[in-house]
Every structure is written in C-alpha cells, then in structure tokens.
C-alpha cells in the first residue's frame, strides 16, 4: 500500500465522515445532527471527485447538501429547534438491540465483502470517461439510452413529491383574511382585552427585572406585564415590590422611633 495523495485524501475525508456520522447519531440537539450530516455529505463529495466522478461530486454538494439538507434545517425550524428525544424507551432494550444490530451488520458486511473482494482489479475510469468526451457526456449517454425509463419514472416521482407536500401542508383559506380595519375594531370591543400596548415589566416599580410586575396608577399590580413563560412557570417567581417598599418604610419609621 503506497502512501499517495489519494490515501491521504481518503484518510482525512473518510475520517471526518465517520466523525460526522457518529456526531449525527449521538447529538442531543437536532440542529447539530443536521450540521454533522452536512459535513459527512461534503466529505463524501470530495471522495466522489477522488473516484473520477467530478459531476457527481458537484451534484452532491449543490443538490444533496445544498438543497436537501437545507430543507431539513427549514423543517427543523418549523417543527421546533429544541425538540429533543424522550429518553424513555418504549420497548425495553431497544437501544441496546439497535447498537448490537448495527455492530453485527458492520462486521458481517465488512467481513463478507473483504473476503470476497480481495483481488478485484481497479480498472479505473479513464477509458469510460473518454468514450463520449468527458464524464458528464458519458453519464448523459447512459441516462438517455439505458436508463431512459428510470429517468421518466423519476419525473413521476418528483411530481408526486411536490403534490404530496402541497396536500399535507397547504391550508386553504376558507374565509377572506380579516382586513386591518376589522382587526382594529375587534381589538376595541368591550371584553376583548387590553386594546393598547401592555406595560413593560417594572414600570413605576422599584426594579425592572423581568419578574417584577408593573404597578398600575391605582397601586395594583399588572400581572400581564410579566412575560408569559415566566408567568406560567411558577407563581412564586413574580416578586411584588410594593410589599418590599412597605417593609422599608416600616423599618425606617421604627428607626425614627
């Protein structure tokens, strides 16, 4: 085994691919997984180029990484970036079974392939690439002669995919969208809630931390000035600074006495 350029490229890109694959499977956050698999795909593109497949390498980066993985990231944004796995297994031992199955599969495949491919000659693609005047031309020849029907069937597939995406996600508007005037009128109806801006936390209070409710002109607390996540988590988080200022007045008056 000679140390040539291709081996170096293989070790670097192959190593990074494996690291990326493991990172994807083991990441807690889905966005990290998406970025790891993008890393795997780019390294694979370099390996394709090293295998005399320049067209495929470019298509891998442009289409696969650039379009498909970006689609994944978009959907992650829609679904919720922080959606994490539940750690509870539905079937006992499924995690262990999965790992064992994967390891067994790897051993079986590598062993089986290694034993039967020992001395397969590496013919290389120089002749095939030159046959039609280039790699792209050679692939084009195959697509439009031997694999023409697969090409047409893929067109049907893409139509189905587009149609399916529209069916499942396009919500038709069955009533006309409310105009600005209608929205404004609805806001000022009696019982519709607060028509103006809500006060920020801490207005007229002693502190303006996010858990300090604003004080209304009559001295009562405006609880809805505290942001919703803080309010819904725990009532004890909301600090009523009127009571504190009363205690301070009490102490001051005691000192004076």
């Amino acid at each position, binding site marked *: 085994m000679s140390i040539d350029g291709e081996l170096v490229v293989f070790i670097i890109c192959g190593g990074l691919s494996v690291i990326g694959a493991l990172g994807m499977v083991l990441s807690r956050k889905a966005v990290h997984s998406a970025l790891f698999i993008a890393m795997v795909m780019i390294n694979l593109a370099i390996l394709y180029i090293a295998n005399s497949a320049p067209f495929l390498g470019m298509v891998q980066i442009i289409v696969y990484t650039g379009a498909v993985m970006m689609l994944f990231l978009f959907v992650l944004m829609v679904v919720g970036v922080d959606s994490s796995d539940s750690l509870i297994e539905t079937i006992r031992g499924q995690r262990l079974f999965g790992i064992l199955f994967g390891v067994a599969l790897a051993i079986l495949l590598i062993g089986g392939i*290694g034993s039967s491919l020992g001395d397969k000659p590496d013919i*290389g693609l120089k002749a095939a690439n030159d046959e039609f005047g280039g790699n792209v031309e050679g692939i084009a020849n195959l697509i439009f002669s*031997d694999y023409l029907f697969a090409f047409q069937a893929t067109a049907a597939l893409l139509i189905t995919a587009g149609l399916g995406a529209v069916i499942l996600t396009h919500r038709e508007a069955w009533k006309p969208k409310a105009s600005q005037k209608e929205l404004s009128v609805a806001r000022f109806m009696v019982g519709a809630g607060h028509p103006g801006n809500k006060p920020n936390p801490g207005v007229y209070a002693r502190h303006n931390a996010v858990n300090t409710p604003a004080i209304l002109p009559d001295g009562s607390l405006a609880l809805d000035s505290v942001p919703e996540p803080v309010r819904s988590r725990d009532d004890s988080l909301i600090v009523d600074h009127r009571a504190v200022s009363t205690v301070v007045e009490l102490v001051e008056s005691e000192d004076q006495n």
Partner: protein
Amino acid sequence: MDPIYYIYLATLLFSIGAIGVLVRRNAIIVFMSVELMLNAANLVFVAFARMNGNLDGQTVAFFVMVVAAAEVVVGLAIIVQVFRTRASASIDEPNLLKY
C-alpha cells in the same frame, strides 16, 4: 491505494445510519440517519464504478440522489403534518397503537 477501502468506509457509514434509525426517537433524526444510509449506498456505487470501469454506477448514484430528494420532501411533509397535530416530533409519544 486499494479502492476497496471506500467500500469499507461506506459499510461503516451504513451501519452507523442503521444504528441511528433503531436507536433515536426523534423522527427527523431517524430520517437523517436514513439519508446517511442512502449516501453510503451512493459511495458504494461510485467506488465500484471506478473499480468496474464503467459509468453505470455513477448514473445509478445520480438517480439515487434524485429519489432521496423526493423522499425527503414527502417524509418531511408527513413529519410536519404530524408535528402540527401533536406539537412534538417524537416517534413514541403517539402511543395510540398498541401491540
């Protein structure tokens, strides 16, 4: 170098993807693992194309990319629909179907 190393790498990536499908509970990450398996298959085709000396492998890999893209569209549409209904992307939470 011996091109068979590419096949070993592809097999390793395929197995890691298979582990990902079986172990992870988040539907999107499971689907990403399937994409990894398809990429590994592509690497097998490209490496064998080079070893066999014909371009059929590269053409097949090209079509696999197109098919994978279409599958991603449908799969993510289904996942988005389930998410919107359920506000979660976990495979296990919909436990309405028992054994």
